[in-house]
């Protein structure tokens, strides 16, 4: 990952999506997890999509983290990620795996984890 010094965003928000306003994956949430598939990036990949793909080189990121790193609105990253998912370059998963979604212990685990943090 390369640190991006302050200043202008890499791609202006209004150009980043190539004029596409709606993501092809409307279910992408702020905390949806994006992971690169490791497929080589095709040569014709738009620059903004390539920039997102490169941020995923070092590991998974949530949509909102990618937006912060790329200095783009979350709405733009939803569109970019949708394009990469369509080309099988990125996988997305929900913030909580479906099997865990109604885990009644989740809140208890959050509380236990926060308590453990206090003694560090």
């Amino acid at each position, binding site marked *: 990952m390369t640190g991006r010094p302050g200043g202008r965003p890499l791609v202006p928000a209004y150009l980043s999506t190539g004029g596409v306003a709606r993501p092809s994956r409307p279910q992408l949430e702020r905390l949806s*997890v994006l992971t690169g598939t490791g497929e080589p990036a095709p040569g014709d990949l738009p620059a903004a999509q390539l920039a997102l793909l490169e941020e995923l080189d070092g590991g998974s990121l949530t949509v909102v983290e990618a937006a912060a*790193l790329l200095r783009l609105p979350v709405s733009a990253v939803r569109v970019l990620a949708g394009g990469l998912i369509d080309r099988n370059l990125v996988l997305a998963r929900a913030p909580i795996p479906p099997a*865990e979604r109604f885990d009644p212990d989740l*809140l208890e685990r959050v*509380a*236990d984890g926060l308590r453990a*943090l206090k003694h560090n």
Partner: protein
Amino acid sequence: MACAPSSTTSGIHLPDSARDLVKILVAGPFGVGKTTLIDSVSEIRPLHTEEELTEASAQVDDLAGVREKSTTTVAIDFGRISLPGGIVLYLFGTPGQERFRSLWDDIAHGALGALVLVDSRRVDASFDVLGLVEESGLPYAVAFNAFPDAPRHHTEEQLRAALDLEADTPMVTCDAREKDSSIDALLALVQHLIDRHPPEHR
């Protein structure tokens, strides 16, 4: 991929162990200490996104009947805490003015609850936030951020009455600069969420 050890806290990428990603809103008016609280507990330097707010202008008497729209942006700070068991807790600093309603709904989607930060020197600045939280149906707790010059003569009953809080809404005092104090405030909220959902469905 992921060559960094998963225990690293300097990297932005998610630890390999991350499984359940949950979020809590840290809501309050500008200057109340939302980012300070997030910074005190976050394992990453707090990041922010620039969010666009599209607002209908106040002009309603234009000839063509077309409402002009203006776009402004607001920075939304967030931080992250990795907890044992694969849980990653995100904290989103959320401003509370009425004009942020559509943004609010997007950020609040799927949130566990909200910690509403209040400055006891400016209690009325938090009315809008509390209104938005209550309308969204999000369970919440109230934390007074302890500013050094905050008035100390108010009783808990007076503050509770001023904010028109339900009797079972937790109300705590915290120092948003202190990690343990911020965690205690978050724990007051999470305990409230647990108490609202007695484990009857096991």
